[in-house]
């Protein structure tokens, strides 16, 4: 067992070393105009709280909350049909349509929204591209496959006999949904919401392309700091912040629903 695990553990060790380097830089002093660093400091973390960056943190949280709520509402019907349809063909088609964007890379997906939001298809009455609205649409679209899969998995574990029982007791289809299906699917709703929220918190490609520099989320600030200003310590502090929040949220959901966070 040890022997078989060793190479994989080495790979993870390299990954951990990268995160270690990130962690170390997050507490080193930034020397402007240079990749050299100074002594130990907590200034990078207090910098997150400065006016300039607090806006990005606030936007990130608001966008993530809105994305989670909209994604949940938009995904539930699809997940329900996916889990409950009896036709193998319908399930197959839904699954492929749902999974295909899951497997299409961030750039392809986001670029597609650049076209749609950028008045290529229709002329929008209000500006969409390079606005928070546009970013929100892109984030919801990006999150839906994950949410659909998690919800469908939860719904498919609900024995349909409960829905029949509720109907036999006089509940209309809408009432069956409210009193039986939705409460029984809560594990999926909770884990899906937390995972989508955590992912959206560290979203990068969508706000980068659809926000066009006008909408900044935490990950975009990390990029700006690290790749434009060469302020690696500042970027590292922000990245550590995002990492910590993500891990906390996923630990919470792991506690709520025992099971792997992401189905491979």
């Amino acid at each position: 067992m040890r022997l078989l695990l060793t190479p994989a553990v080495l790979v993870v060790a390299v990954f951990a070393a990268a995160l270690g380097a990130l962690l170390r830089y997050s507490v080193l002093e930034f020397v402007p105009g240079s990749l050299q660093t100074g002594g130990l400091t907590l200034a990078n973390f207090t910098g997150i709280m400065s006016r300039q960056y607090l806006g990005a943190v606030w936007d990130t949280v608001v966008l993530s909350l809105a994305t989670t709520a909209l994604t949940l509402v938009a995904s539930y019907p699809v997940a329900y049909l996916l889990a409950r349809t009896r036709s193998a063909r319908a399930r197959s088609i839904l699954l492929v349509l749902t999974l295909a964007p899951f497997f299409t890379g961030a750039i392809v997906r986001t670029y597609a929204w650049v076209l749609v939001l950028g008045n290529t298809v229709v002329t929008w009455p209000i500006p969409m591209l390079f606005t928070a609205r546009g970013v929100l649409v892109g984030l919801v679209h990006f999150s839906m496959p994950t949410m659909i899969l998690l919800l469908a998995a939860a719904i498919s574990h609900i024995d349909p006999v409960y829905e029949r029982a509720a109907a036999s007791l006089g509940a209309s289809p809408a009432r069956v949904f409210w009193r039986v299906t939705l409460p029984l699917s809560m594990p999926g709703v909770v884990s899906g919401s937390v995972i989508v929220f955590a992912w959206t918190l560290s979203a990068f490609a969508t706000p980068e392309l659809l926000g066009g520099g006008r909408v900044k989320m935490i990950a975009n600030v990390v990029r700006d700091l690290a790749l434009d200003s060469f302020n690696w310590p500042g970027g590292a502090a922000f990245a550590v912040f995002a990492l910590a929040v993500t891990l906390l949220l996923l630990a919470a959901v792991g506690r709520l629903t025992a099971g792997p966070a992401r189905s491979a």
Partner: protein
Amino acid sequence: MLRLAVLLLVAFMTLPTVVVIAVSFNPTAILSFPPSGFSWRWYVNVLTYPQFQRAMWNSLVVTLGAVAVAMPVGTAAALALARGRRGTSLWSTVLLSPLVVPGVAAGLGFLILGAALGLLRSRVVLIAAHVALVLPFVVRSVWVSARNLDPTLERAAASLGATPWRAFRRVTLPLLRPGLVAALLFAVIVSLNEFVVSLFISTRLTEILPVAMFTYVVNYTDPTIAALSTLFIVVTFVVVWLADRFLDLGGVFLHHRG
């Protein structure tokens, strides 16, 4: 009602794909939908643009390199997890952990590490990062297959005179095939599409296709990226369709009722 809602939502999910494919055949450089005609010129542009040629080569090298390392490493780990009794959940958490790390954190981490080691000019850091990001998918896919493997089968093979290696080759490996195929598909798709981490650790010379596309999108607005995206979508769609056909993706994700 439900069907109508799902139809609209699926339309929302597929709309961008449709638009991209349509725009990729547009004859003019101005993005328009529906396209004003039909032309292959942007596909020609994709294939002749030097930076894309280089990026495709880089993608090929990085993905093949990462998959070549991650497949045997991940398979070995999955077998260990499937057979181990103690500590399985700890080790699986460790091996799957790269999944939950935000891309920018991993990217900047590898950038700092690569710079410290002076390796940023080569593709070594890129490949190392891709191996780590792809590994969880390989481990999970093979693990699912390996877990359902009856350990007495190898003993049966041994009782029939097979050496441990022969037993592995003739019994275990063939039974693991669905898991291995799924692992390979996931690994290739995830690596080919990886963007955020690669953005941090690429140079103009080593950047892979998604990074090159990103740079192009930021600087130009013609439908070249639509053509390239279409190629990506077609490849992915075919792969997912084949996977669903032969691997029962529904069985992987959903609970089936008898």
